[in-house]
């Protein structure tokens, strides 16, 4: 009788077109529109920051994998870690920051635990957290994006920092920001066309935030381009859609109910759209948070993971000392993943 154990051990003889390398390359490609926007907006400081982060990551990866007699640069994960670190940094940060952050991510968080697949915190997010803690001043190196330099009186702080400093409770109607002409144009088109028929009106300034005409970290500012890349990797099934949906959903809901700026507000009048379009929440939700090693293995777990990150991100926005703490939210939740991982497992 043909025993199933006598099957050819080298079966199956076909594989899915997706491989580890193709998945990583897919993530890098999905980030590239945002990368180019960062170069276009901030020029050579941004290019240098990203290059420093990536090269540092590659160098340390090569060193440590050589110690293990392996050559792991091929799998592209170090490149991706460096890229995410570079994109999470302010463009004006001095070069030692990306170098140190990448070194910490690769050497301490990844290799001291055993290399790819063994890290229990997201390496890139841990590197960013280190940068925030060790060099908070350097992490304030915001620059004004190129599209906006001609506008008078524009502060180089991020929108969150500006509003917090002014004690304002909401973005629309705060009168603090100067909008670009492109923003006025597109806001007008949308209001006349789509939103007018729905009976709502988009205040000025949001299009600037959405397209990336604001100071911020290199890769986080262009929500539009991040979403474009994200839609592609979701369609190609590179990332699991439940993670970003859970993160953004919980974050937006809490921001709407309780507000996400330190100023006091009545309930259910928070500016969720502003909260989503600023800071690194969209970037974090689709890219670092979807790192498979540090996220749960099953769908129910991933949903809980996303809800936790979204909640922590909101909490850090609302009550944190720094403007926002997405990186901390991710690494804290990473530590809880072993407990979450059992969710959804069949018993017996």
């Amino acid at each position: 009788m043909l025993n199933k154990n006598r099957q050819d051990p080298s079966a199956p003889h076909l594989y899915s077109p997706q491989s580890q390398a193709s998945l990583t390359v897919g993530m890098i490609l999905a980030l590239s529109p945002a990368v180019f926007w960062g170069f276009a907006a901030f020029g050579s400081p941004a290019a240098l920051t990203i290059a420093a982060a990536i090269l540092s990551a590659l160098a340390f990866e090569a060193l440590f994998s050589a110690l293990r007699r392996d050559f792991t640069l091929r799998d592209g994960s170090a490149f991706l870690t460096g890229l995410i670190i570079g994109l999470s940094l302010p463009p004006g940060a001095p070069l030692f920051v990306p170098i140190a952050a990448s070194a910490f991510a690769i050497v301490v968080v990844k290799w001291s635990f055993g290399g790819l697949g063994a890290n229990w915190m997201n390496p890139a997010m841990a590197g960013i957290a280190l940068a925030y803690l060790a060099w908070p001043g350097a992490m304030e190196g915001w620059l004004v994006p190129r599209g906006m330099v001609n506008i008078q009186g524009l502060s180089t702080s991020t929108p969150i920092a500006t509003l917090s400093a002014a004690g304002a409770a909401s973005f629309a109607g705060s009168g603090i920001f100067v909008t670009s002409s492109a923003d006025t144009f597109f806001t007008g088109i949308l209001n006349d066309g789509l939103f007018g028929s729905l009976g709502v009106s988009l205040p000025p300034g949001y299009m600037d935030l959405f397209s990336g005409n604001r100071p911020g970290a290199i890769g986080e500012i262009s929500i539009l381009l991040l979403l474009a890349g994200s839609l592609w990797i979701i369609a190609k099934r590179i990332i699991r859609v439940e993670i970003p949906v859970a993160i953004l959903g919980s974050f937006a809901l809490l921001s709407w109910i309780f507000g996400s700026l330190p100023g006091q507000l009545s309930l259910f009048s928070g500016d969720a759209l502003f909260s989503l379009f600023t800071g690194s929440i969209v970037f974090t939700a689709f890219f670092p948070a979807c790192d498979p090693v540090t996220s749960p293995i099953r769908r129910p777990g991933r949903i809980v993971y996303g809800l936790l990150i979204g909640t922590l991100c909101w909490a850090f926005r609302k009550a944190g000392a720094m403007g926002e703490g997405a990186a901390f939210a991710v690494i804290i939740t990473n530590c809880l993943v072993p407990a979450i991982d059992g969710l959804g497992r069949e018993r017996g």
Partner: protein
Amino acid sequence: MSFGRGGLDIGLKRTRYPLNERVGNAFLPVQAIVPLGREADDQARCLVFPGDRVEECQIIGRADRREASNIHSPIPGTVSEIRSIRNPAGHIIQAVVVELGGSFSVLGRKPENFPWRSLSAADIIHLITEKGVLRLGKEAKPMQQVILDARKSGEPWFILSCIDTEPHVASESLALAERAHAIAEGLEILFKAASAGAAVIIYSPSQSAAVERLLEEISSRGIKHVPLMVQDRYPQGFPSQLRSVAKSLEPRLIPAGLMEAAHIIDSSSLIAVRDAVAGNKPFIERYITVAGDAIKQPRILKVRIGMKIGDIIEECGGFRGVPERIVLDGPMTGHAITDLDIPVGKTNSAIVALSKQEINESRRTSCVRCGRCVDVCPEALDPQRLYSLCVLDPESRALSAALSSCSSCGLCAYICPSRLPLLEAFRRTMLGHEQRGARRC
């Protein structure tokens, strides 16, 4: 309609060729190397000696144990030797080598149509045994064993799976398209032999047209049946998944609890049953799909048992380029072979020559806990955890308990982006447990 969990559409439709264009009869082998069994433990007892003359369809091996089936000569001629050959798994089995010569007693003659309805169930079972008919598919075994098992319960139900499980293979679809009449008659014969109650006919959307004819034939014979169309999703053709999807018809169309113990049969087996009982013809030929990107002219051929794989591939124009891997039976569960001189046996359904691009092989890296293996496992196992156990604690009880549910579909290994040898690890571990268990006895 599809089975409950896991599974994946691995492009089954894409790799099936339009049937009507690519069908044919293979040339008769000048030399037939007829295996006496599939494995070392189901060999029939050889009845002939070198030098003996044999007729077409003459019995040359008698089954003297449960797992074995009678073996018949596919061609008339002279026995030149009894050879030891390696089966695709690498085990030594015996084969009777017959050199073609003399006149054919069955081929070219008018096909017989024996009035079998006057036979009793016992007579039918005897004929099926005599003619060496197998129930094919994932759990191949002699058909009489299936019938005797079925007879243990009153009015047993059968699941007739018309579907092809694996990519590239279309042997069952062709059987359905070409010989619906024979399948229906075979089913009627089986029902009499097993005193069966009813059958669930499972087919895929691409077979809808062909299965209409089958259902008409079955109805006209008064056989109680329930048709069920299922999605083309691997591994729908596996026993566990067939039962699971048939169970969804309970209790509305099928009495509750029957599908758990339903007996599974396939179209090729029923054709062999019909040929044996009504046609007085033993199991000496079957449809074999020759496919894959590395085959020049993919075809489905009617092939006599004992024909060399290399010769069959020749009939399809030979290779296109250099095949990366040649697989006997489906690419997901079949055996990779390097020796093209081995013969096809009763249970082989396909020869697939895969090109490098098709295989999508890539470097093995570490597990990144992406969870894709967990998502696709049709038996709701956790391949990632089981793999760690295989590596770190192969003796664990949890591991052997879980692996006994593993149906070796290979989807975990298929989808793993890190190309971890999941299925290989599971099978080696189970083989290790089996061997240790055998030694202890």
